[in-house]
């Protein structure tokens, strides 16, 4: 037992008196059981939203980008806001699976699978926006460095937009293989239990014939560690490069050297908020309360407080520097008195309220450990982080260098429809995932049972009464 020692002061990560087999049973229950009515209701709503979004995408492509509320000054607004919002949400998954693995944080094991799924599904949504915004998505392959009929006119490797292409596709594909490699032993577990022949075939195919030899596990752990080491700088690079889409331009308000760290912190902030939103519901629906506990919620809230704090400091320094320059133009950037009192004042104050004010409630331990309060705060942060990107883009562009060109951005129903559609698509994927995939990395959770399971901790502390 001594090798499984963990300080008694640490709260258990798995509650209840569970054997290895009990963990198996808890994880396969949503997969082997039937979906309830709530699942079908949620799925139908998501599907309708998705179809509506598809219709709006079809409308955009058949009529042109003029179907959106863009104009001569504001050449990108909702689409790029949504792109950055979705990419940012994806960051929590990689942070949990990669960075927390390097830091040997055991609590990540209950949430890494779903957070990575969220990452992959969110990056799908993000990738849609630049492709639609091309107007002629069938020419999308022009972003690839391939020999072509234009006399080998190559892509421009000096452009942050092309860096984005490389960063996002590397990020998506590496996250996908990281996720899948971790899934193999869990798919194998479902395969070996399945009684229905079709189900057995499907999971046999998905598990790639995983057998669990000692050598396989040795390689598996090495691969996980190296992938975590590669994914850690990768996740930081992705939002850094996204921020360079703005920071390398010459617009005041965008041309800012603090953008990379500030965007990365904001991405993790919004990503953890989305994980809270999703898991707050999922732990109840799939009866996984013993695995995703109050402690997990609190730990995630602490990450939200740290990254939210970084974001708040970044806002403050942007605001101060804009004022300190004394340049009248800076008075119209997204963090300025001009923005707070101008026509987009409502968007400015929404950002301050949802992103800075409301998350401060998490300083109170009782709120930090409350499921419902965490859930509500996470929704607020999701809204706040959307406004952050909208403010940076729309407010800055609405007041350019030439006052006679000042204009506003008004979204059309198509702008809104595509955004709603991506939310629908995201939830369609997530709801299907929750019914067919092992939503907790059960093989990994089994390794921490003896050190962090409630029952084993009690046995070790000599407290047998329960």
């Amino acid at each position, binding site marked *: *037992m001594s*090798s499984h020692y963990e300080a008694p002061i640490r709260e258990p990560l798995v509650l209840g008196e569970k054997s*290895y*087999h009990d963990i*198996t049973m808890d994880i396969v229950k949503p997969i082997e059981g039937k979906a309830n009515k709530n699942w079908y209701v949620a799925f139908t709503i998501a599907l309708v939203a998705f179809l509506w979004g598809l219709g709006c995408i079809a409308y955009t492509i058949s009529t042109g980008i003029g179907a959106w509320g863009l104009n001569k000054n504001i050449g990108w607004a909702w689409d790029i806001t949504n792109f950055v919002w979705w990419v940012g949400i994806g960051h929590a998954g990689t942070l949990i699976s990669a960075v927390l693995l390097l830091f040997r944080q055991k609590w990540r094991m209950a949430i890494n699978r779903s957070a990575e799924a969220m990452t992959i599904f969110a990056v799908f949504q993000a990738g849609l926006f630049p492709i639609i915004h091309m107007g002629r998505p069938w020419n999308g392959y022009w972003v690839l*460095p391939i020999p072509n009929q234009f006399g*080998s*006119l*190559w*892509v*421009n*490797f*000096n*452009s942050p937009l*092309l*860096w984005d292409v*490389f*960063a996002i596709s*590397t990020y998506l*594909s*590496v996250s996908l*293989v*990281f996720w899948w*490699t971790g899934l*193999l*032993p869990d798919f*194998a*577990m479902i395969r*070996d*239990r399945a009684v229905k022949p079709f189900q057995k075939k499907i999971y*046999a195919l998905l598990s*790639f*014939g*995983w*057998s*669990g*030899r*000692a*050598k*396989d*596990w*040795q*390689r*598996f*752990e*090495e*691969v996980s*560690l*190296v*992938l975590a080491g*590669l*994914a850690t700088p*990768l996740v930081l*690079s992705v939002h850094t*490069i996204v921020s*360079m889409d703005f920071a390398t331009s010459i617009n005041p308000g965008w041309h800012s050297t603090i953008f990379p760290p500030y965007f990365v912190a904001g991405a993790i902030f919004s990503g953890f908020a989305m994980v809270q939103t999703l898991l707050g519901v999922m732990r109840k629906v799939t009866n996984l309360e013993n695995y995703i506990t109050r402690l997990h919620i609190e730990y995630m809230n602490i990450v939200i407080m740290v990254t939210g704090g970084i974001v708040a400091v970044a806002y403050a320094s942007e605001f101060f520097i804009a004022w300190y320059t004394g340049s009248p133009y800076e008075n119209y950037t997204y963090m300025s008195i001009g923005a707070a009192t101008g026509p987009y004042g409502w968007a400015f104050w929404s950002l301050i309220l949802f992103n800075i004010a409301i998350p401060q409630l998490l300083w109170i331990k009782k709120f930090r450990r409350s499921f419902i309060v965490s859930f509500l705060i996470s929704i607020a942060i999701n809204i706040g982080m959307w406004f952050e990107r909208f403010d940076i883009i729309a407010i800055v562009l609405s007041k350019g260098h030439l006052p006679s060109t000042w204009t506003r951005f008004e979204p059309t129903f198509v702008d809104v429809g595509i955004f709603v559609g991506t939310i629908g698509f995201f939830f369609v994927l997530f709801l299907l995932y929750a019914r067919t995939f092992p939503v907790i990395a059960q*093989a*990994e959770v*089994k390794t921490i049972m*003896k050190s962090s399971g409630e029952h084993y901790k009690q046995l070790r502390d000599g407290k047998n009464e329960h």
Partner: protein
Amino acid sequence: MSTNKVIHALYNDDDVLMDAVKTVKGANHHIEEVFTPFPVHGLDKLLGLPQTRLAICAFLYGLCGLSFAIWMTNYMMIENWPQDIGGKPNFSWWLNMPAFVPIMFELTVFFAAHLMVITFYMRSRLWPFKEAENPDPRTTDDIFLMEIPVHDNEEELTALLSTTNAVEIKVIEKH
């Protein structure tokens, strides 16, 4: 033929398995394979498995990715079709290099990650439609299985294993 005969000893706890492996190793018997539902730490060392070299592979693959990125940016931006973009120097790869750092980084990671995972899948024989080879379906749930080849010492082995708290001991003819 007795050469294809193996003994399967099944355990329901990782610590018991580790003790059993020590006992069997201590009696100088060869353990052919151990199947476990999750990674048991220290098992590979106990079995005498050599350290995996996948991390070294990943490093070399990363170097390939970095070299490829350097070659690609130089060929496309400097040699084949140099263009004046924002006044950036287009006659020298080295002077234009800062703008290529993101591409060099991303391709290093891309090559290292994907080629390492493909190597892992090939070495551990994992791919779609591959048949699983764990002898007992419970080994992905909560059973730990040790496979020992029998060389006319069936009784001796069975007696030894029965002292190791195995939940099941089976003698199997392997095909």
